[in-house]
């Protein structure tokens, strides 16, 4: 996700301005994270900048209240502040939920582990430990020896088949901002579709994963 020019560009129409502001980027990140079946890259810079802006705003609102600025203006700033905080919180919360759901898989897969922020990694480790402890204590320790792993059904399993994985085949509804031309949908090169701007498509998430990561399509 490109970090954009921010609000300082001199563009007159709101369209181009909106597409590069942090608020718009945060909204996009939130939407994509909510709709994607797996956890996406952590938008570290964006979150950092948003937190700073929120903090500045909060201080500003404090000052306004103390200075006795018109309460209407203050309440409007407060609404904007609440909206931005909601986006940020919901973004983080959605990610935490996905971590909770797929924690063992994320721990095993380096690629996904790297998509977490430092704090999320700490959370994931602790959570994994807690869940394992809980499962061991309540069920697994009472089962016969071969069935005691929380990762495998039994010692005879070839892989960790008790670990839920994100269903990358899930279908998602997506929209592209620009015309992308023909796009190959699966490995066999069998399915080609024309992706046009602003049309909604229902596709398997796996097929458009690279497009989502590069920010060319948005999940809706």
């Amino acid at each position, binding site marked *: 996700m490109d970090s954009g020019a921010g609000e300082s560009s001199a563009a007159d129409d709101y369209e181009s301005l909106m597409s590069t502001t942090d*608020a718009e980027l945060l909204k996009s990140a939130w939407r994509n994270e909510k709709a994607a079946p797996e956890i996406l890259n952590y938008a570290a810079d964006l979150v950092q900048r948003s937190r700073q802006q929120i903090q500045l705003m909060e201080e500003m609102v404090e000052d306004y209240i103390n200075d006795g600025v018109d309460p209407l203006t203050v309440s409007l*700033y407060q609404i904007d502040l609440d909206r931005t905080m909601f986006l940020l919180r919901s973004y983080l919360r959605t990610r935490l939920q996905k971590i909770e759901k797929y924690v063992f898989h994320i721990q095993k897969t380096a690629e996904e582990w790297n998509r977490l922020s430092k704090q999320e990694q700490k959370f994931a480790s602790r959570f994994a430990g807690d869940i394992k402890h809980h499962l061991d204590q309540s069920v697994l320790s009472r089962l016969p020896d071969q069935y005691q792993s929380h990762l495998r059904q039994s010692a005879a399993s070839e892989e960790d088949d008790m670990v839920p994985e994100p269903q990358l*085949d*899930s279908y998602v509804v997506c929209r592209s901002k620009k015309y992308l031309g023909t796009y190959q949908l699966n490995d066999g090169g069998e399915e080609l579709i024309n992706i046009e701007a602003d049309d909604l498509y229902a596709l*398997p998430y796996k097929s458009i994963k690279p497009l989502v990561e590069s920010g060319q399509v948005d999940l809706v």
Partner: protein
Amino acid sequence: MAGTSDPHASAFSAAELEFLAEDEMIEIVPNLRMDALNFISGDFGPFRPQIPTQAPLWLAVALKKRGKCTIRAPEWMSVDKLTQVLEAERDSDKFQPLPFHYVEISRLLFDHAQGDIPDTYMVRSLIEDIKDVRFHKIGKGLESISGGGTFALKLKNLSAMEANIVRPFVTRALETFYKLSSSDMIQETDNAPNRQQTANRGPRRQLKDR
């Protein structure tokens, strides 16, 4: 809604869709004087009495609630335009282009700015009719999704609310087709890549016989 354990349920609640729609721009006529506002979400204003300006919907509704402005109905919300759209919807199998958030925008305006919309009752009933016709079309369109071939679906000109409502059904249906069709592929060819796909398909495999 954040706590649903079903990953295939609607990703967004209706309230969240409304939240997204509230960033759409709309024209207002303020009756107060206010300096420019520098929000995190953008810069708006300054506001001068009787001078129309653009503002995001949430700001417009907030001002309207406090009696500080009137809202100008967006131009697609006129009786004429909507009648045109309704007729086109009825005549054609395709969906007519409508603002992406038309459902949310019209709902917000009806709830808060009823007096500002000319011919409110007419407009409201037209929008209801348009919604009904479109839903009916969606239903018919879904019936025609064929089992063997459908891999992707193009939902042209669908609006946000409509897409959100059909999302669970459409995604689950397409996924089932996808699973069924790939397992056909596996029986035909014995390629290694396909086999890898089955390993990832679900969290559990059947227990091996000892």
